[in-house]
């Protein structure tokens, strides 16, 4: 073989030999650039639903109002019963903020970076081994992570902030007959000891309002656009799959119109409120009522999740603590 090549290369060049070399090289190029198999679809591995932790807290829901964000975050968790209830020593914690949009914090499209940093710090102080922060973004991820301010703030607080890897999406083992089929779910969001869901309160064209339940879409992969068909059912199934241990709704700035992406500062309203609960449905219902002054039963995905028995939509029957700092 080598001799042949040597001969081919060292001979005197005729038109024929040139064409030969040319044809060989062309076919080599063609062969090497054959489209590699698209492997971004979910793999064959399946992932089981997250078991979640049974946590009994002092109150069903705590809401705090004030201006000092780190202090509010601390108070919030302390009133629920302290961080020790959620994070044990050596735990791997996932903090899932909403940083899906390429917008700076004052536009209220992404979770407040100071709040994320404060919660990360609380978790690390409680002895968490690692705090992972990630989100499957709608805009370009590098820009979202940077401009939302979350990457910088959380990294400074000691979190492990990273872009989501295509190979860590595994198709979820959703129950039989599920509308989710076998949608890919991010493995790190499932294989963790504590999942802290940190949405921002804003409006949404399809879902009307978006809080904790809708925020869980950020751990799903695949073609997420199709999730918008029958969104109520799908969101309920994702909620049952992930079972977040703690939901902290950022109502410091809320987006009252043109959500979820926003862009007008006039649509942003400062409410200076954080809401925390282990029950995503209750937290969402409370935020609907107190941040947007709407009836939770009108928001179909919250209502649907409550009907499925995933949480309590009835605020009046819940034990609620309100604090002002």
């Amino acid at each position, binding site marked *: 073989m080598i001799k042949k090549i*040597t001969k081919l290369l060292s001979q005197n060049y005729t038109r024929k030999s040139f064409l030969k070399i040319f044809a060989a090289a062309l076919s080599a190029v063609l062969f090497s650039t054959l489209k590699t198999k698209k492997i971004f679809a979910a793999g064959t591995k399946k992932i089981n639903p997250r078991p979640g932790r049974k946590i009994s807290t002092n109150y069903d829901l705590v809401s705090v109002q004030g201006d000092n964000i780190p202090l509010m975050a601390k108070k919030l968790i302390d009133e629920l019963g302290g961080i020790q209830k959620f994070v044990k020593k050596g735990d791997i914690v996932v903090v899932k903020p909403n940083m899906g949009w390429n917008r700076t914090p004052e536009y209220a499209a992404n979770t407040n970076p100071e709040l994320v940093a404060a919660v990360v710090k609380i978790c690390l102080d409680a002895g968490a081994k690692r705090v992972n922060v990630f989100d499957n973004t709608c805009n*370009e*991820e590098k820009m979202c992570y940077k401009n939302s301010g979350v990457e910088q703030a959380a990294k400074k607080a000691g979190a492990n902030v990273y872009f989501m*890897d295509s190979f860590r999406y595994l198709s979820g083992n959703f129950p039989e007959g599920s509308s989710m089929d076998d949608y890919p779910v991010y493995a790190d969001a499932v294989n963790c000891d504590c999942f802290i869901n940190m949405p921002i309160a804003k409006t949404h*064209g399809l879902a009307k309002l978006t809080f904790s339940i809708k925020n869980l879409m950020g751990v799903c992969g695949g073609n997420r656009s199709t999730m918008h*068909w029958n969104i109520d059912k799908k969101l309920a199934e994702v909620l049952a799959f992930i079972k977040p241990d703690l939901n902290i709704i950022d109502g410091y700035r809320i987006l009252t119109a043109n959500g979820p992406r926003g*862009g007008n500062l006039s649509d942003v309203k400062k409410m200076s409120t954080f809401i925390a609960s282990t029950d995503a449905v209750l937290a969402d219902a409370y935020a609907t009522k107190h941040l947007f002054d709407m009836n939770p039963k009108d928001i179909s995905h919250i209502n649907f999740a409550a009907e499925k028995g995933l949480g309590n939509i009835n605020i009046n029957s819940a034990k609620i603590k309100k604090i002002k700092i």
Partner: protein
Amino acid sequence: MKIKTIKRITQSFIFVLICLAFWYLRYPLSDWFNPVYFFQLSPLAAAASFFLKPVILISAGLIIFTFIFGRVFCGWICPYGTIMDAISFFLKFFRKYKENYPKPLKSKYFLLAVLIILSFFGFQLIYLFEPVTVFARAFYFTLYSLKNNLLTDLFYKLMSADPGAVVEGIYSVFKSSIIENRHVVFNNSLITFIFFALPLFFVFFKRRFWCRYICPLGTCLAAVAKFSLLKRNSGICSSGCSGCVSQCRMNAIKKDNSYVPQECIVCGECIDIPCGKKSKFTFSFPFKIQSEKNAYGAGVTRKDFILWSAAAVTLFFSKKIFAKEQRNVIRPPGSLEEDLFKQKCIRCGNCIKVCVTNGLQPVLFETGLDGVWTPKLDANTGYCEYECVLCGEVCPTQAIEKLSESLKKETKIGIAKIQKDICVPWRDGLECLVCEEHCPVASKAIKLQKITVNGNEIQAPYIEEELCVGCSICENKCPASNNNKKGILIEPI
């Protein structure tokens, strides 16, 4: 150390530097380590951009440099030349290159003249032959994307199998430094690569075939290098061994040991050869031209003139025939008017490479004969990020103007049209509204209206045409598709 060795080390170093600069042309943009300046070096880019101020300043630097040192750019810096030298270096083990001084061809001067004249008449073809852009396109569209995708796939396979801490460590370093976190796909990448590789085949015959007979940039520099200060001084050699003649890859040394300065790329290999009377490069007085007037044989003959003008006229009219009057693709925001854009664009591919969503794609003949490799926004692969102005910042000739962020947000590049026979709410009465959710315009260019389909009252999208900027994110994210057609379509304006 031999000059040859120094040259090879320098060439490799510069080549790696250029590749790195090309590779890291991405968000966030570096202020100084930016290949834009490299494209602006070329005097041809200056001609293409109608002598734009920053381009003319930088390319004037190269011309002055060439006037002092000769064609050092060709011999030591040009990445295309480096590749050719590398290939011939390896081929040397198999075959011996022997030069016996055929007369240098003057055709390259005619080619350059035709290119520049056509360029001024509005038909830009410089990009076809400009070596830096030829290399850059192949690098961006083929080599970069192929390498990135292969590495991504490799790590996908490795990491799916829980490989342990070492591979994970390597991956976490590589991730978004050496590999992007996604596949990068460019249209027509194979054609681009073939166009780049074709001239390299002629290295089998002559080491610097391209540089000798075609390269318009080299020709441009040759016109200056004729008067360069740095000239080969052969001393008093008259032995007639013609060792240097057969060494010279550019045919710059004639059989009688006289010298053609405009052909010389200062590679210095004639100094290295074992020769009794070593030839030298020394500074000598500029206008003392040696007797090489007839380096190319006769001057412009009637035949030459008729032939090349005929070629130019044919090209010009073929452009007219195949021209597309209207803009029929979505151009990047800040693009000049269609005709001017195609003239000024040197097809370096910077905008296409830097696009954060992989939305910009090179076109082939979609926009006419004169639009090859110009960028278009393709909603199948990406969209235009609302707050991003990178493509304007990396354009060396300002065919895409530098826009401020606030101006860019108002720049319309297209207009969305809902395809009611595909759009799910309009067709099936199923609520969807993905487009409305993603619409980046602050007050939403996609608005909702209540309609009744099949007895269900649902919300369906409609377009507020005055607000729509045509960023294509709605088409890109639209989940409804029928034969690759989405439920919403952006039309260029």
